[in-house]
């Protein structure tokens, strides 16, 4: 896909995210919109080696959404990629759905492991990278973490382990939108500069604009091409805006876990359309 097509895809995903959360009456729009462009780059920018027709393909790249509450973004991405019908997005959070409030790997193809309890995904991703190395299987392990999530001590236990083990095929993207539920991460319990912290733990650190799809595709593609065992794992600090693309949601902690009303959805969809017109 060229840039315009990728931007169009990200816009479609954003619209689906908002529509499905509105339909469900609950869910997490803010953090879904902030990680939409990186998911689009991974799945549609030719970064991930994956096959929707064969989700368990040997040698595929693996993706783990550590910040499981971003599920709507992952679901819309997987649906557009062909893992399941786009129509199924309307079932989000309803009784009997495969689209649980947080991703359930027992139910949905394309989900490698269930998430929702923050701070665990990086450890799983590290173990997966170590496991692939052990069995001699190809593939990189990508994960997206929230910046608030990085307040969990376990994230740093995983960071220490991955650097010590030299898990060079592990690429962790930090969705650095600077907001968590109770407000700005620097006001709630400041984790400081996350890039400096990962570097201090022995990781290679790359900084990128988390909404510049070209930059995301180029950066992630380059990192994947260079990834090799026995090297430092890589943290991609993606500067993002929570609620990206919807004026009244951008940088508002209040939109972390609240569904739009029908009128708000209409305005949001119109704004998203206008931005690519």
């Amino acid at each position, binding site marked *: 896909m060229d840039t315009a097509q990728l931007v169009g895809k990200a816009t479609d995903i954003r619209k689906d995210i908002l529509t499905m959360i509105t339909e469900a009456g*609950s*869910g997490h729009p803010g953090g879904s919109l902030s990680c939409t462009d990186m998911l689009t780059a991974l799945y549609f920018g030719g970064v991930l080696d994956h096959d929707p027709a064969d989700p368990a393909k040997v040698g595929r790249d693996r993706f783990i959404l550590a910040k499981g509450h971003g599920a709507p973004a992952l679901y819309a991405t997987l649906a557009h990629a062909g893992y399941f019908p786009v129509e199924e997005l309307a079932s989000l*959070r309803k*009784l*009997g759905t495969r689209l*649980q409030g947080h991703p359930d790997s027992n139910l949905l193809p394309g989900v490698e492991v269930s998430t929702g309890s923050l701070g665990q995904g990086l450890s799983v991703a590290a173990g997966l990278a170590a496991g692939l190395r052990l069995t001699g299987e190809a593939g990189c392990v990508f994960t997206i973490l929230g910046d608030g999530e990085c*307040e969990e*001590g376990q994230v740093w236990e995983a960071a220490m382990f991955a650097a010590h083990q030299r898990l060079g095929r592990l690429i962790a993207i930090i969705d650095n939108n600077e907001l968590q539920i109770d407000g700005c991460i620097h006001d709630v*319990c400041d984790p400081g500069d996350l890039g400096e912290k990962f570097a201090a733990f022995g990781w290679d650190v790359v900084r990128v604009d988390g909404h510049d799809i070209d930059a995301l595709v180029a950066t992630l593609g380059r990192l994947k091409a260079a990834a090799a065992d026995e090297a430092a794992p890589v943290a991609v600090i993606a500067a993002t805006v929570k609620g990206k693309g919807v004026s009244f949601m951008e940088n508002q902690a209040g939109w972390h876990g609240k569904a739009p009303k029908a009128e708000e959805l209409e305005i949001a969809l119109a704004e998203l359309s206008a931005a690519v017109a």
Partner: protein
Amino acid sequence: MVKLASAEAAAQKKATRAAFGATLAELADAGVPVVAVDADLTGSTTTKKLADAGHGDRLFNCGIAEQNMVDVAAGLSLAGNVAFTGSFAVFGTGRAYDQIRNTVCYSNLNVKIAPTHAGISVGPDGGSHQMLEDVSLMRGLPGMRVLVPADYAAARAAIKLAAATPGPVYVRMGRAAVPCVYDDDVELEIGRAYVLREGCDVTIVANGVEIREALLAADVLAERGVSAEVIDAFSVKPLDGETIAASLAKTRCAVVAEEHSVVGGLGSAVCELAAQTCPVPVELVGMRDRFGKSGEFDELLAYFGLDAAAIVEAVEKARSRAGLC
């Protein structure tokens, strides 16, 4: 008998979690040295109300770090404070279990584990967030007292009791608004169960949101000529063995209903009691060794067999096993 809500008050719905921050503020206003330690959920748990009431210095936000939250509370208690922890029940107990066990309980510290959003009341968030094993986890800890309030007034009473009782106490609160059962100013006691409705044909022991279902079930049973005794085992540990065993001896069969796994919770506690004091048939209404899933709260109550209809069915079973029908 304990004072119950008027019919008018009973029609009002309030979440148990709403009592958390409000009661902490009330205690702080009265000079009790309460502190709250939360993990990026001060609005959801309502601990923020402590700060809103002018006690901002008594509220600590650890960010998303539940293990740290519990041990910070432990430290605050060592300096003479009555320390409450928050977060959601799934993370506030499970994520920090070793901190609760090896620091709070093993050292017998004055820490109150008081998370909200327990059980299936978190609905659409799904199984990852529906904590159905917390009572079991907390009940197994030596020295831990376990309280499961049924409504706002009972939650307020539970927070006050926790503050007034030295040592570890677990208070389980929910997200959903539930009908009022007790009078606003009710005072409850740790280790006591409350007979909400007297009956002679079956004992229904329940707590938390299942009190509403148990009372509805008792109405249905009454129409069928079965008189059910409904007991609120708000104190799961210590359990009021005297009140419950006396009821079992009278009715000769029981149903236990809880918004929790049938493994290790109130059902288990009542079975332990019955086996040791008054062996009668006991049927369990609860989550049957499985995880929850996304859905609306009321819809899930029916889906998982936790509603009044399920209690009625369990009563028929218990009575038939006891040879009573």
